[in-house]
């Protein structure tokens, strides 16, 4: 795969997350009843960063959970790929809480549908809001994000990769030519 271009650098990612943290607080009028749920794996790192930023702004550390959506994927049995199942860790009740679901890229919407199905199995949150670093379009389900770091219209022949220090050793968002219009990305 040939690298095409860097569309967001470390400073850009940090600025976007700072803005999202402020928007979350503004929309929810503070931290009351708020919890963050990061979708494995990229979403978890972003949720942890949002947790720190919100703590810095408000002085309150809001609870953070980790959600693995593999068991809820709708393509699990129609593909030869067997995704590795990771651990889900939500050590608190979701009842009557405001859940901020965090992921790195919003694409077809199927991951978010799976995440919402999984969350509902854990309890009945008061509401679920979605925060993503990148929205690249091409939705296959009627899902939209409440908080977006960057809208990034891209073709299906491109793949959007969010590299984060925690996993890749550097912070950047890269658009790459995938060579086929499969719609599969990161």
């Amino acid at each position: 795969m040939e690298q095409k271009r860097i569309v967001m650098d470390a400073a850009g990612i940090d600025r976007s997350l700072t803005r999202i943290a402020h928007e979350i607080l503004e929309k929810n009028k503070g931290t009351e009843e708020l919890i963050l749920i990061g979708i494995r794996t990229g979403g978890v790192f972003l949720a942890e960063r949002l947790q720190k930023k919100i703590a810095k702004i408000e002085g309150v550390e809001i609870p953070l959970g980790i959600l693995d959506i593999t068991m809820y994927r709708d393509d699990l049995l129609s593909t030869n790929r067997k995704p590795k199942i990771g651990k889900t860790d939500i050590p608190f009740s979701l009842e009557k809480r405001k859940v901020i679901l965090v992921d790195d890229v919003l694409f077809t919407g199927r991951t978010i549908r799976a995440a919402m199905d999984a969350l509902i199995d854990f309890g009945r949150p008061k509401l679920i809001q979605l925060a993503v670093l990148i929205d690249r379009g091409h939705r296959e389900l009627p899902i939209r994000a409440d908080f977006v770091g960057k809208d990034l219209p891209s073709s299906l022949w491109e793949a959007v990769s969010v590299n984060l220090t925690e996993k890749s050793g550097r912070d950047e968002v890269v658009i790459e030519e995938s060579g086929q219009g499969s719609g599969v990305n990161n």
Partner: protein
Amino acid sequence: MKLSKKDLLGIRDLTVEEINLILETAESFIEVSTRDIKKVPTLRGKTVINLFLEASTRTRTSFEIAGKRLSADTINISSTTSSIVKGETLIDTARNLEAMNPDVIVIRHSAAGAPQILARIMKQPIINAGDGAHEHPTQALLDLMTIRAKKGKVAGLKVAIVGDIAHSRVARSNIYGLTKMGAHVTVAGPATMMPRYIDRMGVTVCYRLEEAIRDADIIMMLRIQTERQQENLFPSLREYANYFCLNGENIKLAKDDVLVMHPGPINRGVEIAPEIADGPYSVILDQVTNGVAVRMALLYLLTGGK
């Protein structure tokens, strides 16, 4: 990384990487069983047939729960309710089941090799849930998972397997699994219950309980399999218990943090004293809990994909 074969017939067929994949997947499935809603949609629309042609409570229930927690449709067939009692052969039963398009067949059979026969003639994945005195791979995997969860590793541990080694499929699968994963295995039991050439499986052989469990990290007690014995291999249960029952006194020879395991069902006071079975060293019920997760992992890894 995925399993290289369509079936799980024995631990002997698995590589270390495949064992690790199964255990890691199972560790993720543990969490599902702790939820209020213990069900995920992973295998929705799939059919799992539990063909249990030999008595079983925990393995059959464990497979059934595993299938249901993954949203598969699970069908149980026992020897008394199948056409086997009318004289149908296993191969004919298998062909008829295959014609109904299930997605996985789990089989327990009193004859060693029965799962291998099914695997040859059926296109569906076959999981061996115990065949005669041959193998019981899911038991060995849940034992490895329990050891790993409690000790953090398997390699380097000293494991004693005690009892009726000759008739035990659990012992055979565990010897394959434990030695592959780097544990040092000692087997002990009466000479009449010790198969010839067992040392060729890479284990140390001894004939006294005390010798086997000295400084052991893990003690795996086996059930006396009276149903598989064609002759009297010891004078009486009382005498067997006298020499081979794990009790509060002889367990002191093992390490202070020893784990006591048993595949169940337990003959209390014969293989294991009640105070040990229910005591702080015992992880017997953890084994049962982990069994559901291991079977969920296998159903997930062997099912699906076009």
